[in-house]
């Protein structure tokens, strides 16, 4: 394992200090917690939005703390959901009197820990609602299982629910907006090489030189299928087809596209892939209102990419383009 760090057990601690140092105009660290909150928290009269999860997905979620997105991000250990007490601290810090929405990615651990925090907050009289993002279409949905994972589509939830909160909507409206995004957003990823959790020291899975993994999540976990290496075009088609199976975009529909590098896939390759995705969308007559390319929700140094499509309605589109100013995502007011 070759990593630039000091102590594997301190990596989250050190990282949070680095984020606070780099982005001091946006956010601050809540003392003795793993929580980053907006510099001026709570924002009075605004619904607070809290997200978080295991670390190793940077810029998610700390990079999205700021105007028009999150009020707080709670960091767990690498790939390990944060504990309820930490989430509770975040909730208390951002409640500006209009309640708090928790944006949870659908993993058993995250759901349970955030749920326990919500129970604690409610016991203190804070109004807390939660939404669970489950955009990953890699695994079939089923009522017998814990359902689908939340992956990069979460960024759209942050952006759009964040815009709703910023505009003064109340907790129910913000939650409804978030749920509408969740309903309309689908993703799927693949990887070319695994990643190494610092404290583990060995990769989560192994791939031969001619193999790729389809449907990989964002935790170095194995995907759902292994194939020989596909070209960017073939990969784009495979991921698009899976996403489209669920999303049923029609000719003339407007969509936002998020192409997410998982860690070590260079922007060069991401743009090659973007070009292939755009071609497919054009073929289908789907209008791309927005194309976002880069690293938004990573999996340490995993090589790979995910494709997220969000079906837009006029209200979602308006909020997607609303002003945002966070370390990782910025939007100018139009």
């Amino acid at each position, binding site marked *: 394992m070759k990593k630039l760090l000091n102590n594997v057990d301190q990596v989250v601690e050190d990282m949070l200090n680095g984020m606070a140092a780099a982005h001091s105009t946006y956010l601050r660290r809540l003392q003795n917690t793993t929580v980053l909150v907006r510099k001026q928290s709570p924002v009075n009269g605004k619904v607070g939005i809290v997200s978080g999860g295991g670390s190793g997905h940077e810029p998610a979620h700390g990079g999205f703390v700021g105007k028009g997105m999150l009020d707080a991000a709670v960091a767990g250990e690498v790939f390990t959901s*944060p504990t*309820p007490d930490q989430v509770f601290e975040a909730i208390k810090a951002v409640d500006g009197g209009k309640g708090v929405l928790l944006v949870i990615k659908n993993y058993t651990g995250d759901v349970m820990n955030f749920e326990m925090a919500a129970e604690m907050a409610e016991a203190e009289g804070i109004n807390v609602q939660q939404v669970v993002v489950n955009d990953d279409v890699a695994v079939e949905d089923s009522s017998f299982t814990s359902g689908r994972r939340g992956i990069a589509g979460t960024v759209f939830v942050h952006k759009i629910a964040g815009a709703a909160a910023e505009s003064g909507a109340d907790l129910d409206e913000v939650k409804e907006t978030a749920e509408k995004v969740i309903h309309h957003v689908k993703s799927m990823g693949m990887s070319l090489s695994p990643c190494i959790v610092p*404290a583990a020291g060995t990769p989560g899975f192994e791939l031969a030189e001619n193999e790729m993994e389809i449907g990989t999540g964002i935790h170095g976990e194995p995907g759902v299928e292994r194939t020989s290496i596909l070209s960017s075009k073939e990969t784009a088609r495979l991921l698009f087809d899976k996403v489209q199976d669920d999303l049923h975009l029609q000719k003339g529909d407007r969509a936002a596209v998020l192409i997410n590098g998982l860690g070590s896939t260079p922007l060069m390759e991401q743009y090659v892939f973007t070009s292939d995705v755009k071609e497919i969308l054009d073929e289908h007559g789907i209008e791309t209102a927005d194309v976002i390319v880069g690293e938004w929700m990573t999996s340490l140094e995993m090589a790979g990419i995910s494709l997220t499509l969000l079906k837009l309605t006029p209200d979602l589109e308006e909020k997607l383009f609303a002003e945002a100013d966070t370390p990782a995502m910025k939007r100018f007011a139009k």
Partner: protein
Amino acid sequence: MDKQMAAEWLKRFAETVEKNKEELTKLDQAVGDGDHGINMNRGLQEVLRKMEEVPADSPGGVVKAAAMICISKVGGASGPLYGSALMKIASALGDEEDVEGKQLTKALRDGVDAIKKRGRAEEGEKTMVDVWEPAVQALEQGSSWQELTEIVKKARDNTIDMKATKGRAAYLGDRSIGHLDPGAVSSSYFFLELACVMEESS
């Protein structure tokens, strides 16, 4: 069971997890995200420290302190699950200084029920429930600690052939078959060390 035995139980549990940390990590890499050993060890080491610093007055007190630490230090899925289980076990044990076998079994029943409720999991889903449920049932049916040992090992190994439908392993679908469930393995340590401590004192 007195407070020393309870402490000894959790101490051995912590030590076994530490010794098998890499093994648990490897198991979790195969079907999950590779942190189960790290998570459990982080929490249980803290439990050890706490037990030395502030020894509790009763078996219930020992377990309650461990529950709080699991909730605030383990994270992931196993944190709230072990945390909720231990919390319920502690409640059931109350602050009695010496706990009967029967009462312990009832407490463990509350524990497994808490896991099933928090995790919305049933037996057969390839999770820690697949060790907890048969273990507690065996005790309920009067198995000896010696017998429990065998039952727990078998239950643990039974997870190999299961297809996961809860937890991260569920994302693998059929590919989850053929691997031990890491949470079932750590849970087996929990019961094996309990049996060991109880056997030795009997």
